[in-house]
């Protein structure tokens, strides 16, 4: 278990993120359900979109998130659902601020837990998969609490940077700086007043620690 590097940790997370995005697309009916394929991940049945462009977009987005994660700049990753009028409806947030802080040079160094007495594994795969399964299962069950999404919704992936992180400006630029309507707090997660926050799960498996919740926008609350 001590053979994990920071990179493998991030990769495990991004794999999960990809599956989560596909699941969110399925649950919120962003794309017609017939365009989804049944697959299995972490020994759990999941839905995966079949359209090549969609898959490509998701992979690109996740890759961009990954590169930012590797630099350790990301505070949280969000999958935002917009209505037809480009107003955010809800946001699925994954708070990754608790990932270990690893300098760029040590991306491929083997990680070892600081607790010498109790060698804990950095990335206990079995537990991690178990928790991923639980999260995905909760994600699918979230449909009940959120209510159906209106027609014609779209989605995007957003990241919130840590306060001291530099914005990812490079060429070609994968990220577009988002306009923050409510600029009360630095790095505030709420861009619009949230009507409801539904916790999904807090994953804790070795060093893989993150939390997931769903925020619903107050002004454009979906039915139910």
């Amino acid at each position, binding site marked *: 278990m001590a053979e994990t590097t920071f990179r493998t940790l991030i990769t495990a997370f991004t794999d999960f993120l990809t599956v989560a995005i596909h699941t969110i697309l399925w649950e919120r009916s962003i794309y017609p359900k*017939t365009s989804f394929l049944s697959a299995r991940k972490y020994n759990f*049945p999941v839905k995966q979109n079949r359209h090549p462009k969609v898959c490509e977009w998701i992979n690109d987005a996740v890759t961009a998130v990954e590169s930012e994660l590797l630099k350790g700049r990301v505070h949280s990753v969000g999958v935002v659902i917009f209505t037809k009028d480009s107003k955010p409806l809800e946001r699925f947030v994954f708070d990754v601020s608790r990932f270990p802080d690893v300098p760029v040079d040590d991306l491929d160094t083997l990680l070892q837990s600081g607790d010498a007495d109790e060698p804990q594994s950095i990335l206990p795969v079995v537990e991690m998969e178990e928790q991923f399964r639980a999260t995905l*299962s909760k994600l699918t069950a979230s449909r009940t609490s959120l209510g159906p999404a209106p027609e014609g919704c779209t989605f995007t992936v957003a990241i919130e940077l840590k306060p001291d992180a530099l914005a990812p400006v490079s060429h070609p630029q994968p990220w577009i700086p988002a306009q923050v309507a409510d600029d009360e707090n630095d790095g505030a997660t709420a861009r619009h007043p949230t009507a409801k926050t539904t916790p999904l799960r807090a994953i804790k498996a070795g060093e893989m620690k993150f939390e997931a919740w769903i925020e619903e926008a107050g002004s454009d609350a979906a039915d139910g």
Partner: protein
Amino acid sequence: MARDYSEYLAINVLNEQQVVSYRTLSRALKVHVNLAKQMLYDFHRKQNAKKPSSVHATYLITGTRVAQSTSKTNGIHSQDGEDTVMRSSPPIPGSSPAKQTGDSGDNDDIPIRTVLLVREEHLEKAKATFKHISGIHVYSLQPGSLSDIQVLSDCNRRIVSLYAAEDPLVAWKQYGTIQDPNVKRRTQGQRPPPPVAPPLAKSAVSTKPTATAGKPVALERQASRASDASISSAKATPEPNDTANAKKSAASKPPATKRQSSDIFKSFAKGGSKAKKETPDTSAAPSPALVPVADQPMGGMSDDDGDDAVEDAEVEVRAGTGKLRKDRQAELEAMMDAEDDPMDDTAESGIDSQTEPVTKAQAEATEEPAETMVVENGRRRGRRRVMKKKTVKDEEGYLVTKEEAVWESFSEDEPAPKKAKMASAPAVAKGGAAAKKASKPGQGNIMSFFGKK
């Protein structure tokens, strides 16, 4: 221990928002599945009376349906159709198109026996498509309507992982799983046909022609084979019968013996597994290499896996088993008339074989143990240690027992260890620890075999 099922369901479905199938409920509360189905129905009704749509159900309908038109019921594309067909089973409605290739489509109504999983919102529609419904029950409860019916498969995975420790042969009555009465648990090591137990040590040695004389492996193999035979015979007494028996057992593992062994094992099924489990890796001493080799040929016959190493232990075991074997044999006779003789033989040969390899392995040394065994026939406790059987449970639930040189002391439970040994024999073969099983395995197994009886 039927806890309050409403409490359980309330916690799991409402609070934790999990999907609970009738199977999960039955395993968790240790009740029969039919009772669990009723519990689900009752809870669903009560909750929805309190707060409508708080709990959703999926139903399983069994019955005959008329073959529907092809376009709609092509299994793959019926994802969004009214009925959701479980992927795991072949899409029964979908097979109708194949049948109907000759027809124009709607002319002939071919009744198709269908097992269908439907969500509650589609229930009425689904029921309407059935010509005759033979059964309908609640399959699962979940807090919200399932968008992906495949999620139900996760329930079964959870059951398997949580309750893998339960022996299905025991638990089926409680849960109500369908059980074939003829099924028998396969034991890993087949005992060699019970040959007449040749004189221990000497005869065994001579009769084990198969094993390359010089090689302890061979010896062990034969020994194990013989021991298996002996064990299976159940007539423990190491009657130093004919070498012939040993030969028989050693040289040829007639399928008959195996069959007998199987039958015997069948009765020992549970015990056998347990025995296997009990026997931790026995023969530590014997070279593991030998064990795998020895195991291969022994395969079916005796599980005695590589007990080569510990000759003394082996011998002792044999001695012990001999005694037990006698007792066991008596019991076995009662059980299996037909197998009495072979068993005796096996027992004999087993003993012989055991002694044989031992002898071969170490000339004098083996002899002595053999003798000791004979002498100690009446001894209840075979202190032939070091033969440990390590029982590993397969995915398939087969107990694979590997015998290692470590023998354990026999006592009344000899048969168990023996059986374990036998089980381990095949297991060893599987695991490649064939060498070990040589003599010891056979002996131990056979004895344990009888011991059970």
